[in-house]
């Protein structure tokens, strides 16, 4: 398969997935107790049947199911997610306000997890079978078994309550009016615990994948050849082993983007981080399904885009890539 065909196929798949999310959202919205009209009518204190019927007509709720799905798809394509049931503001505005905080948290956690996971995983592989390998593998197994939110609570207990070293709540001190530098420092200090908590779990996974991938490459003929022709170990390590071992790790990591964003709902709830995850939790508590489903759609869309970018990078990075399936 040629590259253009491969990438077009991937793009078509991304569109298909997004349409799937729309259908799923639509089904879930219909399963939710009470439709939008009764919720709106209830908010305005008018349970008058005639008024509800009028609202239903205005919202298109009296048409056939396929027609409604079509209307819904069109509005999502225009990025019109409707109003929040509780806030009476466009859902998109509310999410846009919260997105930067979530991106800051997840990207920091992801960067840390990837860097630490690859570093520790390759150290473990390089010393496979040694005590160091056992210790590192043990650490990875431990963090992989800890519930994220529990790790967060324990970190708060240790570093905020008992040692009083780090803040455990929010993104910055309330009413901080200092310079830009002090604001950045303030946010950074608040970022440490939530980003580490989220990152350590994924670090454990990447460590494991890196270790397996490096061990796999170390076993290949071209590494044996490089050794046999007397290349320096450092050079073999950088040019031959790591370069080849990294590709599957990067692919794997991009596939996990969705899980990382999903994990932020727990972390943001534990640390009161003012991002989309926390917003999803509030929407959950207030039964604001419109907001909740919009969050689900937008995070899915972000994941689809990340995966698509990873596919493009993949093709650009390695011309020998197998373009099957």
């Amino acid at each position, binding site marked *: 398969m040629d590259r253009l065909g491969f990438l077009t196929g991937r793009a078509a*798949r991304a569109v*298909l*997935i997004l349409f*799937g*999310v729309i259908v*799923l959202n639509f089904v*879930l919205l219909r*399963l*939710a*107790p009470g439709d939008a009209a009764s919720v709106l009518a209830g908010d305005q204190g008018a349970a008058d049947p005639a008024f509800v019927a009028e609202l239903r007509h205005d919202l298109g709720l009296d048409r056939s199911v396929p027609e409604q799905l079509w209307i819904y798809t069109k509005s999502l394509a225009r990025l019109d997610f409707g109003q929040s049931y509780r806030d009476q503001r466009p859902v998109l505005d509310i999410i846009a306000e919260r997105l930067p905080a979530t991106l800051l948290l997840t990207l920091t956690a992801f960067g840390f997890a990837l860097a630490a996971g690859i570093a520790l995983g390759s150290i473990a592989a390089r010393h496979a079978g040694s005590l160091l390998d056992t210790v590192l593998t043990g650490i990875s*197994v*431990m963090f*992989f*078994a*800890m*519930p*994220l*939110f*529990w790790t967060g*609570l*324990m970190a*708060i*207990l240790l570093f905020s*309550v008992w040692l009083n070293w780090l803040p455990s709540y929010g993104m910055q001190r309330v009413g901080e009016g200092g310079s830009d530098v002090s604001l950045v420092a303030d946010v950074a200090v608040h970022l440490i615990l939530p980003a580490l908590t989220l990152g350590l779990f994924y670090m454990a*996974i990447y460590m*494991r994948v890196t270790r*397996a991938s490096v*061990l*796999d490459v170390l076993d290949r003929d071209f590494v044996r050849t490089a050794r046999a022709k007397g290349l320096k170990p450092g050079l073999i390590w950088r040019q031959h082993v790591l370069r080849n071992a990294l590709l599957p790790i990067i692919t*794997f990591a991009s*596939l*996990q983007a*969705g*899980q990382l*964003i*999903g*994990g932020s*709902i*727990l972390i943001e*709830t534990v640390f009161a981080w003012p991002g989309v995850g926390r917003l*999803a*939790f509030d929407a*959950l*508590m207030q*039964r604001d*399904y419109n907001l*909740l*489903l919009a*969050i*689900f759609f937008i*995070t*899915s869309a972000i*994941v*689809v885009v990340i*995966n698509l970018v990873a596919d493009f990078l993949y093709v650009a990075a390695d011309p020998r890539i197998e373009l099957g399936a």
Partner: protein
Amino acid sequence: MALLRSSFLRHPGAVAGALILIAILLMAIFAGILFPGDPWRMVARPNLPPFSPGHLFGTDMLGRDLAAGIAHGAQVTLLIALAVTMLAVAFGTAIGAVAGYFGGWVDDVAMRFTEFFQTIPSFLLTVVIVAIIAPSLTSIILAIAIVSWPQIARLVRAEVLSLVNQDFVRAARVGGLSSARIIWGHILPNVLSPVIVAASLMTATVILIESGISFLGLGNRDFVSWGYLLGTGRTAFRVNWWLSTIPGLAIFLTVLSLNLVGDGLNHWLNPRNSNRGGRA
């Protein structure tokens, strides 16, 4: 005893995991005998710290015994984990086997469907489903199963693809057996061991997801799991730290032991490709 000692030396993690797991299972099975009566009644002074006489794990703000809660909560947590795993394995195996066996457009459709569930943020989806269908034991089990089956489907499909052109399958086809009988009687038995490994690792992940859902307050009050205990203990955790620490420790130990047992099974059942493990 000698057998136990020799396997412990070879796979210390797996044996330790199996022992912890057996202890937790026994605790769940005998919860009613160890802590008879309703575990949610007041039995002592509120907020007793751990290691108080008669209350190993202390009591909560309403004077309920946390040890009783942990033992009874084990039943709920393990019940949900087993139910989800069985559902997801059954569905995932069916999809994977059909996709791998028939190939062509059937495979295409099945794999696009699988990819869809692997791409979308799965934890968020379970939360949305549970919130919308109203939290109950059934909705929690269904919602977690919906996001858990894809990895089994992929695994089974890959295994079936490697088997479908082997001589014993061709012979069965030439012999005129129906597709269903070939899949059920000839192919699936050969796929069993990697599926068992993936299922044990999946049970661990399911426990983590369930605890997350309950922690967010979406659990069901009638079925108090460890995650639910952890979530309710959280409101006072800065003072009564044990109320969230101990349920979390229970989750951690169970997940850890399941992972260790899964890895051990993988080495034992699939010695040639023990790097695979299906943990993604």
